[in-house]
């Protein structure tokens, strides 16, 4: 059913990955911002966990794009439309 090629990706896959990378980066930014203002310790712990997961997902997606030949510059902010 699936192409077994491990590196090459289709244009649609690339767009999906890039779009989700930017969404995860936004979520990461929001978590960092929210951690400066939340008061409730349980909410704080929850957002810290979410931030950590977002970081892992950003790294995971970046790695997948790198494998496919589309290196991601982590410091570069994505484009928003």
């Amino acid at each position: 059913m699936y192409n077994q090629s491990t590196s090459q990706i289709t244009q649609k896959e690339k767009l999906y990955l890039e779009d989700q990378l930017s969404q995860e980066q936004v979520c990461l930014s929001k978590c960092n911002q929210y951690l400066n203002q939340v008061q409730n310790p349980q909410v704080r712990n929850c957002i810290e966990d979410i931030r950590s997961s977002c970081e892992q997902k950003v790294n995971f997606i970046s790695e997948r794009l790198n494998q496919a030949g589309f290196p991601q510059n982590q410091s570069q902010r994505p484009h928003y439309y």
Partner: protein
Amino acid sequence: MYRQYEGTPTYTQQSRMSDKDVITDVLSSVKHMSGHYHQGILEANSHDTRQAFLNLHDYTLDQHKNIVESMKSQGWYNPEMANPRNY
């Protein structure tokens, strides 16, 4: 006519998001991303990309569960139960 402010406007309590607003916004983001990862699985062409989206989807569902559990413990997530007598 615009009101003239003197000095720096004060940071009022009304302009600050509550902890409930914050966690609700994060929940909304995670729900949105979950749907997108699901769509990514359906559109994947290679086994590796499909597996990548599956892993990301699982991660996101775990995030969703953690947020909902946290909100429930605060009394901020109270879905109404169906009542058979109202049928």
